[in-house]
């Protein structure tokens, strides 16, 4: 580990707005489902371009539409992105997404398919993408203190090994990152159930605590109001196979990864996460790809993901570091696992040793080492949709 003046140093990309990325992507963002074909066409022609197809963007309205724009613009604005191309069926919405990115000072170009057709759009946009890729290839990593950088955490296909070992070890890393002045986002609103009062108790600011309770009650109230049998869904089949029995047990295991620092930031779907926010609760679905997608839209450049039974989620633009303490999963799904802390579960090493192992691995990833998700092309981009379209 490189340390200057007692502080870890990484080699990252400083963006025009001062934010720090650990990857250097050119992204092609389709505004809507109809534009996926053109976006993928550009990515096929130009090496080094990442297209992020998704099924939404037509006839959404209100808060649901605002959230889609927030996610699309936020993803382009993420510090791991050097520059972006936006493709929409219509010009106005494509420009609206691009406007949300251009604020960061990075290059952004928007194109509309209507009146041009896919082929002409692909050609014009691919020419721009080629220029951007060549420009981006000259961007250099520079030495940066590991501070004021944005991260995120989530667990998935959890089992009791998560609560016992991989989550507490990740919590150790979270404490360390927060102490160094970084921001760490967590969410999974519904999966805090059984431990929601513990989370609330760690929010010092009264207004923020009240905001957290409102978000929690609204989310869980919605689920409960459906009046459906959640067994089989929460905990999931994988959770139950791994020994988790109830949502409370899952929630209590979940919060072990939050470390011990005060929660200093509470944000709802549409709120930005300010740099320097510290440990930050973000209202998210508990579905892995949806949560990671939202964290990235809010600026996370690296995600720590703990799993018990073996969740394989990744993201097209950020490294997702996969951590497990389940020795069976570490063996049977080894290609997906970046850090194995099963020796912590087996009581062979202490929390600090396992935590340092994750921290040091994360540093290598920040400096450029590719994660299993990146190499295996786990490119899940899953915007949260709040309700039906008009």
């Amino acid at each position, binding site marked *: 580990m490189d340390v200057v003046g007692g502080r870890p140093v990484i080699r990252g990309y400083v963006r025009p707005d001062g934010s720090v990325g650990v990857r250097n992507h050119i992204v092609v963002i389709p505004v809507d489902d109809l534009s996926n074909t053109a976006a993928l066409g550009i990515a096929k022609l130009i090496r080094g371009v990442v297209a992020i197809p998704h099924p939404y963007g037509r006839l959404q309205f209100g808060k649901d539409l605002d959230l889609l724009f927030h996610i699309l613009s936020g993803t382009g604005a993420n510090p791991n992105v050097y520059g972006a191309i936006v493709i929409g069926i219509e010009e106005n919405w494509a420009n609206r997404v691009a406007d949300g990115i251009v604020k960061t000072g990075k290059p952004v170009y928007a194109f509309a398919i209507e009146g041009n057709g896919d082929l002409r759009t692909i050609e014009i946009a691919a020419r721009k993408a080629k220029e951007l890729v060549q420009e981006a290839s000259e961007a250099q990593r520079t030495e940066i203190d590991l501070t004021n950088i944005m991260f995120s955490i989530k667990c998935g296909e959890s*089992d*009791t*090994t998560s*609560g*016992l070992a991989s989550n507490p070890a990740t919590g150790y890393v979270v404490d360390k990152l927060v102490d160094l002045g970084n921001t760490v986002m967590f969410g999974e609103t519904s999966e805090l*159930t*059984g*431990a929601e009062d513990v989370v609330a108790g760690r929010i010092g600011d009264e207004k923020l605590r009240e905001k957290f309770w409102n978000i929690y009650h609204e989310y869980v109230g919605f689920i*409960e109001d459906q*009046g*459906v*049998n*959640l*067994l089989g869904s*929460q905990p999931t089949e994988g959770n*139950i196979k*791994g*020994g988790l*029995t*109830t*949502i*409370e*047990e899952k929630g*209590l*295991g979940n919060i072990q990864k939050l470390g011990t620092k005060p929660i200093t930031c509470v944000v709802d779907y549409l709120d930005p996460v300010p740099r320097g926010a510290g440990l930050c609760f973000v209202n998210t679905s508990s579905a892995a790809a949806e949560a990671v997608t939202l964290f990235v839209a809010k600026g996370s450049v690296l995600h720590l993901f703990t799993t*018990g039974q073996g969740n394989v989620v990744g993201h097209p633009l950020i490294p997702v570091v996969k951590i497990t303490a*389940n*020795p*069976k999963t570490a063996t049977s799904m080894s290609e997906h696992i970046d850090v194995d802390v099963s020796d912590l*579960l*087996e*009581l062979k090493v202490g929390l600090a040793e396992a935590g340092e192992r994750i921290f040091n691995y994360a540093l290598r990833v920040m400096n450029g080492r590719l994660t299993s998700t990146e190499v295996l092309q786990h490119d899940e981009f899953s915007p949260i949709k709040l309700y039906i379209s008009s």
Partner: protein
Amino acid sequence: MARVAVHDRRDSVGVAIEDIRTGDEVEAVYIIDKFVIGRIKALGDIPLGHKIALKDIGAGEKIIKYGRPIGVATRDIKAGEHVHTHNLKSIRWGALERR
């Protein structure tokens, strides 16, 4: 000897950190300081990650893990028994089932 890990001294269940077979004598270990809380005989197979009752638990009694209730026993559970969906259910979302 096989071991089960215990989060909190108030807990009524421990977690198998390896596969345990019926009749195995297991040691319950507190994870923070590796203090051995006691020994217990497994009354059933307990796969890695699954829970074992550390004491007798009566039907309707709360089951404690992390020092907090994780649900309620749906029938009497003997020390050493496997604890899972067949004898433990949520206090929170389990209630929805009864609607």
